[in-house]
């Protein structure tokens, strides 16, 4: 389906972005370098994330009919714009492949240890392609069903953990025992970029919503609510496991779910797995859509369905070959945010906004 016919309601946009933000973040103990203050790290990163939402939506406000790649070409011209656009396609392939790989690894760890990784990833990409080939608006409509399920599951987990009496809130104290420095150091760039900065990919479909004036408010609301949810998750992770076990546990959310014991309600791991899978599915699908849309925009591809399918299978190949193991995958986590997520998600959009602002001033001066 071509992008020309696509429209997304503001509710669908909200739910898609919210699911994207939850995404794979439940897999990691974000901000755990600040130990028991990890939940505070999320709140600080949330504020930085909001500042960058202003930057992204300001670019969109200047060019309401265009996606992020068209905005880049409008600001820089084709000579400088197209190479940067292609770099974005390559860059977004990285988090897409990592997400896909993460969920393949997760299935092999928790459910199908004997199964081949390639077969699991193949089924995952097929499902994603099936939805995306119907259009991004279909993915948006499915999110209307999925997000309430995830939120109900998350709230049930918090309530059940509290009722189990396993949460020791003394694990959270003392708050900021080593001052605010470790909190700030962990919040930027790590958590401010992953997950809050990654929302830039959503600017590939912001132009499809009819209520463009609500994009900024919606994106900010998403960042605030998802940030609070993540902070709450970290709060429970640390209060149940303590900061040391939260940092060494492979998937902290699954670990805290395993300790739930309220009457007949035990062994409810499946709830955690459903949350992680649905979040990961949406995140990976949005990245895949973004990569294909960049290529379609740059090369003006008419047959988008074929391009999306080719991109999907290319992503599958990349996800299998680009990382030798899950240990390597975890080793890359702070490196990528510190050294190249920061350029593509923070520095380049900020520079584009400055360049566009000065170009506008020059036009005003030359006309006056």
């Amino acid at each position: 389906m071509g992008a020309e016919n696509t429209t997304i309601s503001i509710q669908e946009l909200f739910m898609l972005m919210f699911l994207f933000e939850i995404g794979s973040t439940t897999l990691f103990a974000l901000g755990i370098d600040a130990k028991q203050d990890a939940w505070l790290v999320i709140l600080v990163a949330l504020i930085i994330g909001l500042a960058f939402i202003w930057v992204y939506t300001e670019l969109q406000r200047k060019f309401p009919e265009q996606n992020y790649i068209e905005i880049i070409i409008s600001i820089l011209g084709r000579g400088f714009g197209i190479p940067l656009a292609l770099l974005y396609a390559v860059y977004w392939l990285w988090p897409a492949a990592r997400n896909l790989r993460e969920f393949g690894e997760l299935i092999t760890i928790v459910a199908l240890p004997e199964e081949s990784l390639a077969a699991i990833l193949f089924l995952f990409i097929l499902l994603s392609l099936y939805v995306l080939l119907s259009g991004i608006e279909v993915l948006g409509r499915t999110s209307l069903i999925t997000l309430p399920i995830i939120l109900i599951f998350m709230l049930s987990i918090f309530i059940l953990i509290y009722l189990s009496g396993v949460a020791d809130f003394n694990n959270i104290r003392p708050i900021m025992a080593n001052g605010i420095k470790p909190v700030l150091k962990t919040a930027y760039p790590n958590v401010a970029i992953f997950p809050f900065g990654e929302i830039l990919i959503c600017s590939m479909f912001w132009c499809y919503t009819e209520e463009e004036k609500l994009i900024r408010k919606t994106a900010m609301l998403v960042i605030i609510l998802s940030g609070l949810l993540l902070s709450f998750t970290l709060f429970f992770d640390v209060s149940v496991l303590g900061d040391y076990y939260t940092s060494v546990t492979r998937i902290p959310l699954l670990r805290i779910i395993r300790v739930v014991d309220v009457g007949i309600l035990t062994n409810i791991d499946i709830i955690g797995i459903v949350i992680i899978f649905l979040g990961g599915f949406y995140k990976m699908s949005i990245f895949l859509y973004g990569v294909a849309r960049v290529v379609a925009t740059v090369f003006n591809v008419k047959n988008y369905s074929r391009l999306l399918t080719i991109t999907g299978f290319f992503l599958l190949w990349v996800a299998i070959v680009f990382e030798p193991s899950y240990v390597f995958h975890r080793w890359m986590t702070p490196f990528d945010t510190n050294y190249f997520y920061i350029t593509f998600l923070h520095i380049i959009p900020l520079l584009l906004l400055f360049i566009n602002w000065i170009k506008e001033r020059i036009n005003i001066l030359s006309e006056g």
Partner: protein
Amino acid sequence: MFIIQYLEQLLEGRGFFASFLVISGWIYVFILIGILIFYIFLYFTQVILNIIKR
């Protein structure tokens, strides 16, 4: 060269994909800074031209 040594140390074992993204991302940041400086220069030239015209 200090930069080459630093990059070698930084990117050791990270693989081609990650190394490419680090290097190309930062190269483009410098290109954009160059473009920004160019436009700032153009802006001040325009300001001076407007003053002269008056």
